[in-house]
C-alpha cells in the first residue's frame, strides 16, 4: 500500500512539474503563435484570390462529402469567395483555403495546417516545385474535379494518394459550398 502511494505521488509530482513548465511556455508563446497564424491565413487568402479585404459571411459550419466547411469569406473586390475547409488526410486533419470565382471555378488552393508525412503527403503543402505544380493543377477546376485514378484530370502526388484525394475532395466541396450560397 505504501509503495503504491509512493509511486503515485512521484508520478503525480513529475507530471505536475512538466505540466507547469508547459503552461509557462504556453503563456509566453501563445500570443505570438496566434498572431503568426493569423498572418499566415491572411497570406493564404491573398495567394488563392487577390483582394484588398475579405468579408466573412459567417455561415454555419457544415459538412459536404466528409469535408468540413469552416468559413466562407467574400472578396471585397467582388472577385469571388475564399472557403476554408478541413478534411482528413493520411495522418491527421488538413486545413486548406480554396479560392472560388463567380463562375464557380477554383482560383487556387493553399494548405495552412497539416501533419502529413514529410516527403510524401507533405509535398502537397510544400513551397518547392513539386508542391507548386501539384496545387496549380486545381486552378480553373470545377466541382467535378477528380484524380486521374477516378477518371479526372489531377495527377496525384507520388506515394500520397490519400492526401491528393483529400485535397481534390476539399476543392470540390468548397466549390459546392459556394454554389449552395446561391
Amino acid at each position, binding site marked *: 500500500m505504501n509503495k503504491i502511494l509512493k509511486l503515485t505521488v512521484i508520478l503525480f509530482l513529475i507530471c505536475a512539474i512538466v505540466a507547469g513548465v508547459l503552461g509557462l511556455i504556453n503563456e509566453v508563446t501563445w500570443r505570438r503563435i496566434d498572431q503568426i497564424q493569423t498572418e499566415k491565413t491572411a497570406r493564404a487568402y491573398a495567394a488563392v484570390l487577390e483582394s484588398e479585404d475579405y468579408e466573412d459571411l459567417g455561415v454555419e459550419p457544415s459538412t459536404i462529402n466528409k469535408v468540413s466547411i469552416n468559413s466562407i469569406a467574400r472578396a471585397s473586390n467582388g472577385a469571388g469567395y475564399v472557403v476554408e475547409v478541413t478534411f482528413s488526410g493520411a495522418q491527421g486533419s488538413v486545413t486548406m483555403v480554396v479560392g472560388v470565382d463567380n463562375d464557380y471555378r477554383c482560383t487556387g488552393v493553399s494548405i495552412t495546417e497539416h501533419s502529413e508525412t*514529410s516527403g510524401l503527403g507533405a509535398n502537397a503543402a510544400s513551397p518547392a516545385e513539386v508542391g507548386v505544380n501539384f496545387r496549380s493543377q486545381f486552378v480553373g477546376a470545377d466541382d467535378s474535379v477528380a484524380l486521374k485514378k477516378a477518371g479526372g484530370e489531377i495527377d496525384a502526388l507520388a506515394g500520397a494518394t490519400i492526401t491528393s484525394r483529400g485535397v481534390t475532395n476539399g476543392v470540390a466541396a468548397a466549390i459546392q459550398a459556394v454554389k449552395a450560397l446561391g
Partner: protein
Amino acid sequence: MNIKKQFKEGLITNNPVTVQLIGMCATMAITTTLFNGVGMGLSVLIILTCCNVAVSAIRKIIPNDIRLAIFVVIIAGFVTIVDLLLQAFIPALSESLGVFIPLIVVNCIIIGRAEAFSQKNTVGASFFDGVFQGLGYTCVLIVMCVFREQIGSGRFGGGLIDVSNGFRFTLDGTGAGIQLFNADYGASIMNLPFGGFITLGLLIAVMQHFLKKSAKKKEAEAAAAAEAEKEAD
C-alpha cells in the same frame, strides 16, 4: 568519462539505426531529400540531448516500476516545449521542421537511450551520449537521403541547396538542389517507402560487413598476441 569511446559507439559500433535497429520508421519515411534528413537529424539530436540530461538528472528518484511512464512524460514535455518555442520565435524553421517534431515523440531512439543509458549514467556522460547518438542518427539519415535522392530524382541536396542564382544554402526548404541528371531518368521507386526499405537494408548489410571484419581482425590480433605470449614463456 570516456568521450572517445562514446563517440565511436554513437557513430559506428552502436549506431542507433544500423546496429541497434531503432527509430527506423521515421528513417524510412523522411529520407527523400537532403533537407529532410538534416532537419530530422538535428531535431532528434537536440531533443535527445535534452531528454538524456533530464532523465539522468532525476535518475535517482525515478522508481523502477514506473520509469517508462516518467520517460514518456519527459519526452512529450520536451518535444512540446521545443515545438512551441520554434513556432513562436523561429516560425520559418518551424514551418519547415514542423512536420518532424511530432514524429519525435514516438521515435524510439529517445526512449531507448533513456532506458539503456541515461537512467544509469551521470549527467555529463548522458549529455555526450545524446549528442553522439544524435550525430550517428543524422549521419545515417544523410547517407540514405543522398543515395535515394541521387537514384530516385537524379538530384543532390534538394531543399537545402540552391544553385539557380549562385551557390547558397536555403534554410526554408525551397532550394531545388543540384540536378545531376534528368529527373525523368530517375528510378522514382527509390522515393517511395519501398526504396527506403531497400536503402536501409543495403546500408545495414554494408555496416555489419565492416563491423564483422574489424571484430575478426581484433580476434585474430588477440589470438596472435596470446600465441606470442605463450612462446615467450
